[in-house]
């Protein structure tokens, strides 16, 4: 740690109040406008511009409308494949969720550091992803109990379970159900955190080896830099896959609520 003391890979996740709102509070709770909130607003605004630009409803769609229709069609086919026809009413929710997470992941990867700004990925915080996961989980609970009433508990006893096995299967299924929001939020948060830490550690290699001398800079530094370019491309892939996995698992969970087993 002492060797690379100048580069702190966790500093990029620090939440800082912006625009002098440090002490803004309601009822004793600090509600400062942070860099996290700024990037949430940015993701929402970009998503809003993206969708509004495609709402022209032309008979022959232009490029922008095609892009929006492709994304909504993608979410629609995801829901129809996993939930069936009854899943179409969740398209607005899953589309917003998918696009919001995707844009958050991608906006956090933008090389804004070149302009002196500090890019921030709010999906690298469990508070943000946890709330999104709880949102999905509460939709499952509300829809499940609304549609099936107490019959929803039959979700925990799969079809064809032998009677003596029910006391064993029920707690296992219950725990695996209750752990879902946790694993859903955790996956996104850790994947984004790990990727950003990895990029920062490699960046530290480049800077520290260049400072250590020309020989180190050319051998260690340039190799690390090439690796960084590759990892950056991988991070874009991970950003898309994690958003897709979040939407996919949400639709799989909604299927449980909508159709039971």
């Amino acid at each position, binding site marked *: 740690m002492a060797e690379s003391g100048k580069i702190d890979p966790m500093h990029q996740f620090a939440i800082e109040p912006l625009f002098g709102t440090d002490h803004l509070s309601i009822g004793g709770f600090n509600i400062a406008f942070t860099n996290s909130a700024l990037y949430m607003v940015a993701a929402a605004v970009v998503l809003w511009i993206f969708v509004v630009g495609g709402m022209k409803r032309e008979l022959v769609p232009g490029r922008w409308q095609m892009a929006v229709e492709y994304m909504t069609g993608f979410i629609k086919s*995801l829901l129809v494949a*996993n939930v069936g026809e009854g899943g179409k009413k969740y398209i607005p929710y899953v589309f917003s969720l998918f696009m919001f997470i995707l844009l958050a992941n991608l906006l956090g990867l933008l090389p804004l550091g070149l302009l002196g700004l500090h890019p921030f990925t709010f999906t690298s915080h469990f508070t943000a992803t946890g709330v999104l996961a709880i949102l999905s989980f509460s939709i499952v609970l509300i829809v499940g109990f609304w549609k099936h009433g107490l019959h929803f508990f039959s979700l925990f006893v799969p079809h064809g379970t032998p009677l003596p096995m029910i006391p064993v299967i029920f707690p296992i299924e219950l725990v695996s159900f209750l752990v879902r929001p946790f694993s859903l939020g*955790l996956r996104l948060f*850790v994947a984004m*955190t*790990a990727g950003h830490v990895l990029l920062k550690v490699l960046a530290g290699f480049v800077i520290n080896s260049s400072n250590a001398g020309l020989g180190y800079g050319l051998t260690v530094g340039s190799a690390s830099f090439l690796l960084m370019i590759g990892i950056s491309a991988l991070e874009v892939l991970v950003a898309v896959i994690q958003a897709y*996995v979040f939407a*996919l698992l949400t639709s799989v969970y909604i299927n449980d609520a909508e159709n039971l087993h």
Partner: protein
Amino acid sequence: MDAEAAKLLGAGLAAIGAGLASLGVGNVFASFLEGALRNPGAADGQQGRLFIGFAAAELLGLLAFVIAMILVFVA
């Protein structure tokens, strides 16, 4: 052993879990490709299951990373 040293050793050992999860993720995609090349017609319909398997295998590796982070920064 010094407590700080034990923490760092534990965090290093947690990296084994991440490596093992990489075997799992590789196995998911390898098996999918193996099946998909035998029957390309059925491959597109199984992408959802592919990513569910990927997510399940990956989560366990990410848990190892979480344990390493907790040991280094929290414990």
